[in-house]
C-alpha cells in the first residue's frame, strides 16, 4: 500500500513521512500569506493537525501538496481575520514619525490602505499585485475558481484606490 493510501487510512507513520516531506512547503506558503514567521510556525502545527483530522476525506489519487496548501490557505485566512478583528479593536496603524521623508510617508499611507482590505482581498492583492502570481496559480492555491480570483483582484484594486484616495494619494 502506498504512502498516501496509508495516510488516508489514518496511519500515523505515513502522516509523519508526509509531514517531513511537505512541512517546508506549507510553512513557506503560510509565511507568504501571513508575512509573519512566528505566526507561520504556529499555523504549521494547526494546518497539519487539520490535515491529520481530515485524513479520511483525502483522496489518495489527488495531489497531497495541493490539498495541504488549500487547508493552509484557510488556516492563514482564519488567522488574518482574527488579526484584523484585533487590529480593528485597537486601530493599530503603521506609525508616521516626525522624521519620515516624503517617500516613507507615502509608503506608510499605502501600507495603511493595504491593511484596510478584508483578509481575502488582501491575500489576493498581495499575491497578484505585489508577488506577481498568475491568477491560475492563485486559484489553485486558494482552492477557488480563476473567475473568483479575477473578481476578487478587481474588487481589491477598486477598494485600494478608494483607500488610497482617503489617504490623500490620487495620482
Amino acid at each position, binding site marked *: 500500500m502506498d504512502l498516501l493510501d496509508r495516510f488516508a487510512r489514518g496511519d*500515523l507513520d505515513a502522516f509523519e513521512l508526509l509531514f517531513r516531506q511537505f512541512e517546508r512547503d506549507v510553512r513557506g506558503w503560510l509565511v507568504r500569506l501571513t508575512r509573519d514567521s512566528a505566526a507561520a*510556525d504556529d499555523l504549521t502545527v494547526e494546518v497539519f*493537525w487539520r490535515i491529520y*483530522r481530515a485524513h479520511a476525506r483525502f483522496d489518495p489519487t489527488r495531489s497531497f501538496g495541493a490539498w495541504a496548501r488549500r487547508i493552509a490557505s484557510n488556516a492563514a485566512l482564519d488567522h488574518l481575520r482574527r488579526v484584523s478583528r484585533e487590529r480593528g479593536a485597537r486601530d493599530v496603524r503603521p506609525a508616521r514619525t516626525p522624521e519620515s521623508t516624503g517617500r516613507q510617508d*507615502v509608503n506608510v499611507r499605502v501600507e495603511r490602505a*493595504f491593511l484596510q482590505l478584508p483578509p481575502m482581498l488582501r491575500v489576493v492583492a498581495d499575491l497578484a499585485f505585489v508577488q506577481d502570481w498568475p491568477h491560475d496559480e492563485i486559484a489553485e492555491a486558494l482552492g477557488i475558481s480563476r473567475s473568483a480570483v479575477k473578481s476578487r483582484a478587481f474588487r481589491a484594486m477598486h477598494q485600494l*484606490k478608494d483607500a*488610497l484616495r482617503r489617504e490623500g494619494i490620487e495620482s
Partner: protein
Amino acid sequence: MNTLSDEHVRGLLKAAIPPPPTDARRGEIWPALRRRIHDGRQHPLRIDYALIAAVVLLCLLRPSVIEFLLLHL
C-alpha cells in the same frame, strides 16, 4: 475622481509592502504536533462516553425513548 491607474497602484504596493520574511522556523514542530494528535484522540472518547451516559439516562427517565431509538438504529 480617482486618477490612479492599476499599474500605478501596483507600483505603489511593491514599493510599500515589504517582501515576505525568509527566516527559518524556530525548531522541530513534529513533537508538538504528535502531542496534539494524541490529545485529540482522547477527547472524542470523553465525548462518546458523555453521549452514551446521556442516552442511558434518557432511557431510564423516559422508557418510550427506547422504542424511538430502536426504530432509528
